[in-house]
């Protein structure tokens, strides 16, 4: 009985840890979550241990929109406890309403945040202080939380597979 109780507690603890590590999956894909600098740091911190692909996109960036299906395909083919797609819309946070509608129509399964800072650079500086405000931009983090690859421009899915493999997946 005692052993069964410990097993239950371990299971609960494991669920708590797993849910924290997979915070993105807790976000409802139907919602667009505002993200400021602190939120970005927090999301990156709790994602350590997984390989993370941060993708910066916007509704006004057609190459970004053409890239997202590939990123979603990667997300579905990779183990959820080992890989996280952290998408951030660079659209104006004041436009979150219609960006949400747009995302729901075109990419309903995409879990995405939306920049809540005054400008794009303020948020992205958390990751890349010398970002040149070009979209799409993606950053690949290894399990230690280090940026191991910066990717600018739309790339084929095979390119991302190779880069993620090099990052430890």
């Amino acid at each position, binding site marked *: 009985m005692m052993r069964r109780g410990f097993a239950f507690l371990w299971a609960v603890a494991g669920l708590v840890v797993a849910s924290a590590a997979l915070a993105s999956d807790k976000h409802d894909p139907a919602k667009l979550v505002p993200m400021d600098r602190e939120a970005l740091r927090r999301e990156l911190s709790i994602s350590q241990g997984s390989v993370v692909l941060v993708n910066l996109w916007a509704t006004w960036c057609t190459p970004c929109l053409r890239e997202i299906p590939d990123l979603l395909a990667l997300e579905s083919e990779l183990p959820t406890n080992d890989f996280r797609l952290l998408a951030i819309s660079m659209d104006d946070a*004041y436009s979150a309403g219609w960006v949400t509608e747009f995302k729901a129509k075109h990419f309903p399964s995409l879990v995405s945040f939306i920049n809540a800072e005054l400008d794009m650079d303020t948020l992205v500086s958390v990751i890349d202080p010398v970002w040149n405000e070009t*979209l*799409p931009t993606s950053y690949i983090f290894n399990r230690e939380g280090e940026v191991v690859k910066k990717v600018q421009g739309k790339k084929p899915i095979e390119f991302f597979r190779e880069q993620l493999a090099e990052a430890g997946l």
Partner: protein
Amino acid sequence: MAACNTMQTKHRSAVKRSCGRFPIVAVAAMLFIVGTSAPHAAESVAASAADRRAQAPVVAVTKDGTVHAIWFDKGAVGEADRKGAHVDGGRHSHQAFADLRYARWLPGSAGFSDSIRINPKPGQVWGFSISRPVIATDDQGRIHIVYPGNGISPKTGKSVASSFYSRSIDGGQTFGAPIQLNGDADEDLSALIMGGLAQAQVFTAMAVSEQGAVHTFWLDTRGMTESMRAALYYRRSDDGGAHFEDEVRLQENDQCPCCQVSAVTEGPSSLFVSARQITGDNIRTPSVMQSADGGESFGAPVETPGTPWRLEGCPLKLAAMATTPDTIHSLVHNGAEDPPGLLYARAAQRDMSFLPPQKIHPEAAVSDSPAMASIGDTLLAAWHAKVDGPRRIFYRFSLDGGESFLPVQTLSTGESSVGYPALATTPDRRFVLAWQANEVIQVKFVDPPRSGVALR
């Protein structure tokens, strides 16, 4: 004492103290400063209201010295999610339902007038920091404006973004009803462009000669295929904007569709337009085209030098241009440089052969958003960049037509998030600098130094 007053700028209290106790030292210090190169500049004034969200300022000056400023107004601070209900049926998602605001700063007055809206109905402007409007003036005192606007195509019934022109012939008191510069497209490219736009005919540029010839350009998705390349269109008015010639397809679909276009005139008939071609394997190549006959014909695009920048994406990078006698100057961001930043290059207008480029701000970790203006052989470049900390605005003078530049100077802007500088010149040979501080538009005068130690 008059000399002391002229020095009351950034270090006002210190100078006052010096004037009271050590006047000779103060005068000597002032002469030293003026004689060595530091330009003096008045404090900045706000053009937009503090409770509004303003972006993408541009400025121009009429011969009477009035400073004219326009910018995108994105709504009140805290006001969310404009729906664009004014655009009949329009809910496109490359969306920006902004207004275009105008204000003027009359000579001798303390600051800008209250602003007025240029677009007839609220929210008709497709406004982002990276799709700037343009304002220019001519010798008749007319004020010319182009801007990107929202609309519904009468041919497809779908949401489109188009280029609009408006002018004032009464010194900025009123503006005429905007006219659409681009023709309507037959094609519905919604599936190709995505984001909800069926066509995009924007990133509008304009140059106006002193005589009042108005030259407008824009990037146009008509004819765009899977390769995602835009065409460059041109439309001209020879009577100060009263009437426009038919549009001309200046370049076929070989242009970066989400880059920006710029234009500048030199005298009555020389005209330059800069855009970014897509060459080779998605190389985003800045180039300049010249017309020597007032826009009747254009020469082939000439590439400005720099490392080839391969990118299937949205660079959103403007090439700033200016002219000095016989010379064309270009300042453009290159993402393939390490670190990415602005490259300056110049060419003789007679042969358009650009000299090797130089980094305008070698110490910057990243530099972008260039602006340039000239008075005679004096050239001023401004941009935003990061060195060790947050983004700041920097500027740099050349007193010899771009042969050499004085050291980089930092615009003192406090703790604000600043960027997107714009430049104009006044009839009394001053420069006007506008920029975005947080989301308020600031404007100030910057005077060129009389001399200085140049860095080559």
